[in-house]
């Protein structure tokens, strides 16, 4: 239980952001402190070294003027003004015989020979070192200077004071860092929470929607632009889903209607013929009606599957080279008897030849469907004109009729499945023809365009990039 909670916490954005913020802040502060500390240490040491060298320099000058006899009391004077526990002065010759020294019992021995050796190797007259003496806990900064012929002066100063001074800094910074960690954690948590609290609202809305409240929307007014955008995008997605749901519901209703009606008719016809003895012809009539209804049902189901498959890209496109003009002429020829019976002028405006590489079967069905519609909705003495042309790198097939036209309200919906401009559904057909046209045309990389005016006619155009 506790472990799981811990695990949940570890994976929460709030927790992660807070920790990230605190760690980043602390690391930056620590780096800053280290740089600062190092600078203070360096400056302090520089000042100390400068003081020590300045002293030995002074005695070197005195040695030149007054010789060893003049220097020795001067050093003693200087030494007397200092605490022998804090500073030491030691004058000796190259062999190591001590000429003057403060009380070295506080300090311990000095390895003078190795220092001289090192100075000789480096070719210098002053050597500054930090030495840990045997008798002391703290370290000391020492200078070893050759102040005259056969005279070595060593001055040492305890670093205790400097250490104490730096220790104070260290303590101060430690306190500062600890409080920084605390403060940055709190600030990080607050910032992260402000960001996530808006997200939480989005989550809550999503939860409500998943429980069935499809009309809920996220409050767009958030503190941050990103969250605002998330909310807006989320709402747009919800709108789209809802409109899809609605259209699916509509399609479902239509399917229910369009499938139920023929089934109801079949059932009714069969039942009626069983209720009473009838003539053989009446039974035949029943069988005929049943077959007709079944065929229309099968046709509808197949067309629906064709549309779905074309939209989903199943049963890929089979391309071949064929003569489009011939295909259009054939389709026109197919409908000529119908057109003639309705006294409709079926005209074509086609070039000599248009060879295309596409899916012939699909093209056949697209052309036939549009042509069939045009003839269906054109009254007697009207005209249907089919034209085709290839220009500007595109192939354009147009079907213009002088028919009833499509109203502005219907125009955006005519390619939807089961959509029929005629609400009473008195005209034959199930409202799948144009959906199939659109699905097939798009599956062979074309587009369908339509312009229409009530009682003046419609113009369908198929455009293919060639």
């Amino acid at each position, binding site marked *: 239980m506790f472990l799981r909670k811990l695990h949940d916490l570890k994976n929460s954005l709030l927790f992660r952001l807070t920790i990230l913020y605190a760690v980043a802040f602390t690391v930056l502060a620590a780096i800053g402190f280290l740089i600062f500390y190092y600078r203070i240490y360096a400056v302090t040491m520089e000042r100390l070294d400068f003081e020590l060298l300045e002293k030995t320099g002074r005695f070197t000058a005195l040695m030149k003027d007054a010789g060893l006899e003049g220097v020795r009391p001067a050093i003693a004077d200087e030494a007397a003004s200092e605490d022998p526990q804090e500073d030491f002065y030691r004058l000796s010759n190259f062999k190591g015989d001590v000429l003057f020294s403060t009380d070295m019992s506080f300090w311990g021995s000095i390895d003078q020979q190795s220092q001289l050796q090192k100075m000789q190797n480096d070719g210098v007259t002053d050597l500054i070192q930090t030495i840990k003496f045997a008798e002391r806990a703290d370290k000391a900064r020492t200078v070893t200077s050759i102040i005259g012929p056969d005279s070595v002066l060593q001055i040492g100063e305890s670093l205790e004071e400097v250490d104490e001074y730096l220790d104070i800094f260290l303590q101060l910074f430690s306190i500062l860092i600890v409080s920084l960690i605390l403060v940055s954690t709190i600030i990080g948590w607050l910032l992260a929470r402000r960001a996530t609290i808006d997200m939480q609202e989005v989550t809550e809305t999503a939860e409500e929607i998943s429980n069935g409240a499809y009309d809920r929307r996220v409050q767009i007014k958030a503190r941050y632009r990103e969250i605002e955008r998330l909310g807006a995008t989320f709402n747009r997605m919800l709108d789209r889903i809802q409109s899809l749901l609605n259209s699916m519901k509509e399609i479902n209703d239509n399917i229910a209607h369009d499938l139920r009606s023929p089934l109801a008719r079949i059932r009714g016809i069969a039942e009626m013929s069983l209720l009473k003895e009838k003539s053989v012809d009446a039974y035949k009539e029943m069988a005929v009606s*049943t077959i007709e209804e*079944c065929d229309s049902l099968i046709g509808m189901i*197949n067309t629906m599957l064709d549309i779905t498959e074309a939209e989903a890209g199943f049963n890929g496109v089979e391309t071949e080279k064929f003569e489009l003009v011939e295909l259009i002429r054939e389709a026109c020829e*197919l*409908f000529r008897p119908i057109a003639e019976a309705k006294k409709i002028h079926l005209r074509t405006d086609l070039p000599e030849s248009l060879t295309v590489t596409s899916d012939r079967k699909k093209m056949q069905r697209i052309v036939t469907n549009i042509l069939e519609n045009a003839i*269906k909705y054109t009254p007697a003495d009207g005209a249907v004109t089919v034209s085709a042309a290839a220009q500007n790198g595109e192939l354009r097939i147009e079907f213009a009729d002088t028919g009833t036209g499509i109203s502005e309200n219907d125009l955006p919906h005519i390619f939807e499945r089961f959509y029929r401009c005629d609400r009473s559904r008195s005209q034959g057909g199930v409202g799948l023809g144009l959906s199939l046209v659109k699905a097939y045309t798009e599956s062979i990389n074309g587009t369908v365009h339509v312009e229409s005016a009530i009682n003046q006619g419609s113009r369908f155009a198929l455009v293919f990039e060639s």
Partner: protein
Amino acid sequence: MRLLLVEDDLKIAQFVENGLREAGFAVDHAADGEDGLHLALTEPYDIAVVDLMLPKLDGLTLIEEVRKNNINTPVLILSAKRSVDDRVMGLKTGSDDYLVKPFAFSELLARVQALIRRSTHVTAPSELTVADLMLNLDKRKVFRAGKEIFLQPLEFSLLEYLMRSAGRVVSKTMIMEHVWDYNFSPQTNVVEARICYLRDKIDKDFDIKLIHTVRGVGYVLKETA
């Protein structure tokens, strides 16, 4: 002609069996794949009609087994699946055909007869004759009672198809497929209009009508009603 029908849906099996018997076939029916395979391997059939979804042994495996035993009986596959299975496509040779459920019995019969014709290598005649109607395929001419009748190319193709299937009912879908090479039927009855034109030329001036409408099913060209 002996025909093996392997189909587990008993109602479908019954009407197919009855229909084929009426058309003159001797039909054996097996209700599952194992029985079907046993019959196919032991009896000599001229043709087999096999459903794909079968209990015990599926139709494809059955056909593969039959072929493995070097039996080249033509097979008509029945399936409820609309999209043609890749394996069926691989299987489909000159002696196989494919029909999707639900199907029109007239189409099943036409395909069965076409498969048998193909497997028995009947040579195509250059002349088709029904009663006093004669169609010459080489010269593309039509005569009724010795008098030449002039037909448009499409009408000629339609009549040729009807005469080739003489005595057998052909559906609108079959006409669309064979005469127009369309694998679908428009909503509008374009075939009916075309048949009307043809009737005007072939039957109008004669007492004995040859082109008959079988309502709800299709059309048939034959001497007697």
